[in-house]
């Protein structure tokens, strides 16, 4: 049987996620409670528990190729229900930040019609910029 060496699969970006989120990705034991409660799960290309598993395996690129972190609403159901106390929402934010800090915004104001902008509450505009732009 082939052995997996954790030091070989750990990468720079995985370490960055750990630094940004301050969470221990390895404590996840795949119970799936985060995905069960996640209101955005139907819109995500990966389920939150799959994100955790891929992180453990150092496959950050595989996660960043998907829309998963950007479909997150930061509702904190995952974080509050995790039996291992992992702040999954903070991991999602760290994944977003890795993308955003590479100057890859997920949102452009010019795509929004002036009618919609006019009726939008300020907390929506600020929240969108904070979460989806660098």
């Amino acid at each position, binding site marked *: 049987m082939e052995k997996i060496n954790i030091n070989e699969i750990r990468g720079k970006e995985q370490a960055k996620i750990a630094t940004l989120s301050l969470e221990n990705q390895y404590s996840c034991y795949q119970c799936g409670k985060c995905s069960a409660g996640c209101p955005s799960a139907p*819109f995500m290309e990966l389920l939150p528990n799959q994100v955790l598993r891929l992180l453990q395996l150092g496959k950050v690129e595989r996660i960043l190729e998907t829309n998963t972190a950007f479909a997150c609403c930061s509702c904190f*159901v995952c974080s509050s229900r995790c039996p291992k106390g992992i702040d999954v929402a*903070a991991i999602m934010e760290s994944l977003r930040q890795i993308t955003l800090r590479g100057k890859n915004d997920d949102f452009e104001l010019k795509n929004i019609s002036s009618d919609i902008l006019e009726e939008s509450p300020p*907390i929506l505009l600020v929240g*969108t910029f*904070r979460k989806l732009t660098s």
Partner: protein
Amino acid sequence: MKKIKYYPGCTIKTTAQHFEVSAIAVLEKLGIELDELKRWTCCGTVYSLTSDDIMHQLAPVRNLLRVKEEGGSEVVTLCSMCYNTLKRANLLVQKDIEKKDKIKDFMYKELVKYDGDVNVIHLLELLKKIGFDKIKKQIKLSLSGLKVAAYYGCMLLRPEEAAIDDIEEPKIFEDVINLTGAETVEFPYKNECCGSYQTLRRPDIVIERTRTIINSARASGADIIVLSCPLCSFNLEAKQKDVVEKYFGFKGMPVIYFSQLLALAFGLDEDKTRFDLNVISPVEILGKRGLLIRNNV
């Protein structure tokens, strides 16, 4: 009249003015004056979740510093998002000495030093503190017959450090609404997200969430949804038109702030309930339930 420091936030002053007007009027009846901070800025709306992003903690912390500067030790908010952001930034300052020092260093020109010594509370907590008996005494119009779905959303309950009540089975909202004589319904989506800031980038998510939440409230027998967050209000109320566009036959439902419901039950006039500012008027359903005997039209 007892004064309490009040942080309004941007949305309260723009699309959620009916929240503020009704809350001020209700508290006045309860002998409390909301003392708005003389200087305040946007709190940043969402609490920063990455460890190195200290810059975005400055706005909420600086607002709390202003409370202290004006001699306050407690601040109340109406908006659930402001509540959450201020509350968590405050906890960060209290718990993380290293980050607190960094934040202080950024604000070295401030005359007052901030150490997390202002208490952040939401209006629902303030009402509980005032005392439900005292509120009950102000009820001039019993809202019996009206069935209400109390929608908590996320920011009053999660994460646990910011929760104003039990995180999974909260009841503070129902307790307050029941004081008016209205009947609250149990509905399973009361603390599930409305889609939040995804409205602009992923309106499809919000359409599905709004449809699910309102259909659930309706199936539970509710006439109306009552909530506390201006972003939930936008998604669940203003965005119903998008749900109708996508789902033929979807039946909407009025959505109001809990302070408007209290103002109605306190017998306050239309200039305090401000139902005219709701996108979907609750007047028809309130009339049907015989609750517009005063001038609340």
